[in-house]
């Protein structure tokens, strides 16, 4: 009893984790909360990463510089969401052309003055090709929002003046505005009672849990103090957006239903839970296995699951690095920015199809289909793919492609700028497919320089050195053969049979490598599961029970339910 009592006392001090939203999560959350048309986190400082991911709670720090950005982003977002555009005072613009476009931000009346160099011959005036019926040189027209083409046809034209808007019509409130003020009152006609309802709803969604009346009254203070309800709501919304309850997800060891909903939605969407998840959490039904299964399916089919492809996939496979890698242009002039994007896109679409079609996870290793456009297909030497559009392609048996290991993106990010490295590729496989990273090299052993051994030796001959040195042998005898199997792909992933004049010796070759990985598919499954678990929980985690027979959604459900 006594032990139990002590344990209960210390419990609240253990295992609490505060996850700060990272840049992507911040942008996505603001998007789903307010629907503002920009990415407020674009110039936030870099998020540090740990365990290969940039959503690891312990390394996401909060510097004063970032706090300053949070404040500025909150102001910008709240202003964009709440401040209804007010029509300007009428102003004059002069055009010294007879044919021009005029940008109309506010629908309304505009006075036109057509000035002639001489004479007073009537002019024909048209708006988007529709003539205005008038004999005068000064007249009033009505313009809707847009960028109409105006033409004043006269050989004697000096200039055209437009003055307006008069009787402007305020555009309907934006989607953002409707999300904040959902009582339906027009701008300027809100009531305090309504502000309280709106604020409570905003705070609930921003904090991702029900809010107390004390919290709402605290926020209402801003509204009561302000000159107008809208101004007060703006400041209150700013306060919500810099509150730790918004900026952090705080998770105790044992999650309540709302915390669970947040974990799930940040895992699959990198964003806040939507109404459906929130409701299920409120009804304590989200963790019911059948309901959870249906929700995971729904979430993976939602376009927001693109976040999982980009953030989890891009970091697990390290293809995010493709953005900044610079293969040697002298050796690889084919590597254009277009090709870079195509490689990136192929891997994203392949990952996305596994998610959407809920394929077995073994497809990652050996799927016999991929996504190509004409440029990438030509690069791979695969015929009959035409046009710039990506489409699903069933791979011919002799294509040398299939599965992530043979995708140009992965082969490029695991190479040096000017050449392949069987060591890097071997290490890449051990780390990312087998969860068995080689221990770091012993201290003070300089890295073997693979180029220093002379250009006449094959890479294989050069790397024999690794196994000559007993301090290196243990790990390199695991890494190097894996990497060698992929030597038929050059440093940007193109198939080759020779390196310069020397024939490639790829050992067992890529197909045998894939077969051996498939044979141990439980190892691959545990590896993928532990990467998913680490990403989902924002700390080092694993799922030892994965077997390799799961579909993607089954693995997701296992991870969210059982990962430790």
């Amino acid at each position, binding site marked *: 009893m006594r032990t139990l009592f002590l344990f209960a006392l210390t419990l*609240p*001090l253990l*295992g*609490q984790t*505060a996850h700060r939203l990272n840049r992507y999560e911040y942008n996505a959350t603001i998007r789903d909360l307010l629907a503002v048309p920009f990415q407020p986190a674009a*110039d936030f*400082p*870099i998020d*540090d*990463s*740990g*365990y*290969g*991911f*940039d959503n*690891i*709670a*312990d*390394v996401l*720090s*909060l*510097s*004063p*510089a970032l706090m*300053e950005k949070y*404040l*500025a982003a909150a*102001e910008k977002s709240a202003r964009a969401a709440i401040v209804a555009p007010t029509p300007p005072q009428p102003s004059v613009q002069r055009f010294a052309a007879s044919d021009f476009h005029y940008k109309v931000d506010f629908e309304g009346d505009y006075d036109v003055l057509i000035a002639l160099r001489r004479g007073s011959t009537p002019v024909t005036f048209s708006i988007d090709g529709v003539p205005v019926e008038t004999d005068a040189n000064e007249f009033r027209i009505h313009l809707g929002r847009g960028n109409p083409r105006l033409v004043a046809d006269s050989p004697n034209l000096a200039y055209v003046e437009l003055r307006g808007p008069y009787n402007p019509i305020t555009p309907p409130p934006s989607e953002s505005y409707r999300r904040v003020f959902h009582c339906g009152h027009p701008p300027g006609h809100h009531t305090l009672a309504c502000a309280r309802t709106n604020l409570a709803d905003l705070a609930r969604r921003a904090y991702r849990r029900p809010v107390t009346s004390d919290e709402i009254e605290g926020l209402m*203070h*801003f509204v009561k*103090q302000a000159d107008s309800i809208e101004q007060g709501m703006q*400041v209150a919304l700013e*306060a919500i957006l*810099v509150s*730790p309850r918004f*900026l*952090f997800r705080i998770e105790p060891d044992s999650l309540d239903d709302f915390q669970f909903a947040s974990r799930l939605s940040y895992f699959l969407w990198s964003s806040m839970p939507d109404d459906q998840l929130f409701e299920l959490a409120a009804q304590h039904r989200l963790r019911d296995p059948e309901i959870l299964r249906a929700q995971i399916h729904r979430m993976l089919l939602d376009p927001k699951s693109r976040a999982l492809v980009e953030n989890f996939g*891009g*970091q697990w496979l*390290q293809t*995010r*690095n493709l*953005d*900044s890698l*610079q293969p*040697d*242009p002298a050796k690889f002039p084919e590597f254009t920015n277009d090709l870079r994007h195509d490689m990136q896109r192929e891997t994203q679409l392949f990952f996305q199809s596994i998610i959407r079609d809920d394929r077995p996870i073994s497809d990652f290793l050996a799927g016999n289909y991929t996504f190509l456009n004409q440029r990438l297909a030509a690069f791979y030497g695969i015929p009959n793919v035409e046009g710039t559009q990506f489409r699903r392609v069933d791979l011919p048996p002799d294509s040398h492609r299939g599965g992530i290991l043979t995708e140009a993106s992965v082969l490029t990010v695991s190479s*040096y*700028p000017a050449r392949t490295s069987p060591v890097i590729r071997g290490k890449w496989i051990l*780390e990312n497919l087998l969860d068995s990273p080689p221990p*770091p*090299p*012993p*201290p*003070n052993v*300089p*890295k073997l*320089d693979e*180029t*220093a051994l002379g250009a006449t030796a094959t890479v294989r001959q050069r790397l024999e050195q690794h196994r000559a040195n007993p301090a290196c042998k243990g790990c390199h005898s695991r890494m190097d053969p894996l990497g060698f199997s992929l030597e038929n792909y050059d440093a940007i992933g193109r198939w080759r049979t020779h390196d310069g004049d020397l024939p490639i010796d790829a050992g067992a070759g890529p197909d045998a490598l894939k077969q051996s990985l498939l044979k141990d598919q439980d190892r691959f499954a545990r590896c993928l599961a532990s990467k998913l678990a680490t990403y989902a929980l924002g700390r080092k985690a694993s799922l030892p029970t994965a077997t390799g027979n799961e579909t993607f959604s089954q693995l997701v459900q296992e991870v969210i339910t059982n990962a430790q």
Partner: protein
Amino acid sequence: MRSSLSRRTFLQGLGAAISLPLLDAMPAATAPLRLAFIYVPNGIFMDQWTPVSDGADFELPRILSPLTPHRDNVLVLSGLTQNTGRALGDAAGDHARASATYLTGVHPKKTDGAGICAGISVDQVAASHVGASTKLPSLELGCEDGRLVGNCDSGYSCAYNNTLSWRTPSSPLPPDVNPRSVFERLFGSLDENPADRLKRLRNEASILDYVLDDTRRLTSRLGSSDHRKLDEYLTSVREIERRIQFAEKDDQQVSPSFEKPSGVPADFADYAKLMFDLMLVAFQTGTTRVSTFMLGREGSIRAYREIGISDAHHPVTHHSGNPDLIEKVVRINTYHMQQFAYFLDKLKATPDGDGTLLDHSLIVYGSGLSDGNKHQHNNLPVLVAGKSGGRHITYPAETPMNNLHLALLDRMGVRIESLGDSNGELNVLSLNA
């Protein structure tokens, strides 16, 4: 200041190990002293860095040659060591440890995420003492977006490679790599009218009051690891409150001498120069007195195409004695130094108090590794630019780099007993004297 000349000449022949008072006659300062650390990654090819002879009669080797016009403003310090950067039982990870120890002198905890921990860095010690009188206590700059994924270095979180500045042992301050964003931190949004600005500042102050209060309620219910993160949050909120109070008093906004940068220049030299310009204008306007600047993150794999090098920086430094690769390393080292020489040009050309901005600055340049090929943490490349220099001093082997940090803090008017693994204050003849 010429009065120190005879003494310096007199002492020229003596070894640096002899204890000397740091400096004697200091003039009444007409401008405050600024402190900056400029960092280059992956070590330096030391054969082309270290002057052959000690004292005042030394030749600038190839990597230092861009500093020829500034020879008399530069002290080259040899023999300093960051022992805490060595493995000390933690095996590989010398790059992560190089940057994590450079300004801290504390052996970092080997972790990829859980419980990152280094030590408070010298710039942050300085900032905590002299920063209260400036709008920003310190300014952290970088020239490389650290978004590369994967393991940063052998089981160390990327936080260790990405920054030099640690506000507390668990709170790294990531560098700002975006010139426009740095500009806005320094000068705010210049197109705002004074009435709007004041209203915004008042709103911000009341918002921060509210969240401070709210956070206290939140922390009273939470466990310990949350507290660490929320303490970070609270510290940051208080820091911003201070800045707002500062801004409210300062109704005449400083107008910088150049336009707001629009983005990140593609050319490395342009990028580095722009960041140096921003540091300079921050010093010049008194916006801060303390800054760090990483020309690249530690372990950087940037390819310096601008000088015709398409290999990534880090692998090239593992040259294993290959002359072609060494040549590339030296060219990268020299290229970095050219950018630094530009900064010294500008500091020297900027009037400040009774002299120039360089007269009132201590600018340390170097790397957390000496030989990048073998990951050496001893005999680090260190130079200090400021009012006076023109000397090469070799210290006894294994002299802690942190002894220099203590000397720099002393010159900044910050007197502390020790920092990290320091075992005394470095005797630096004529450091900014």
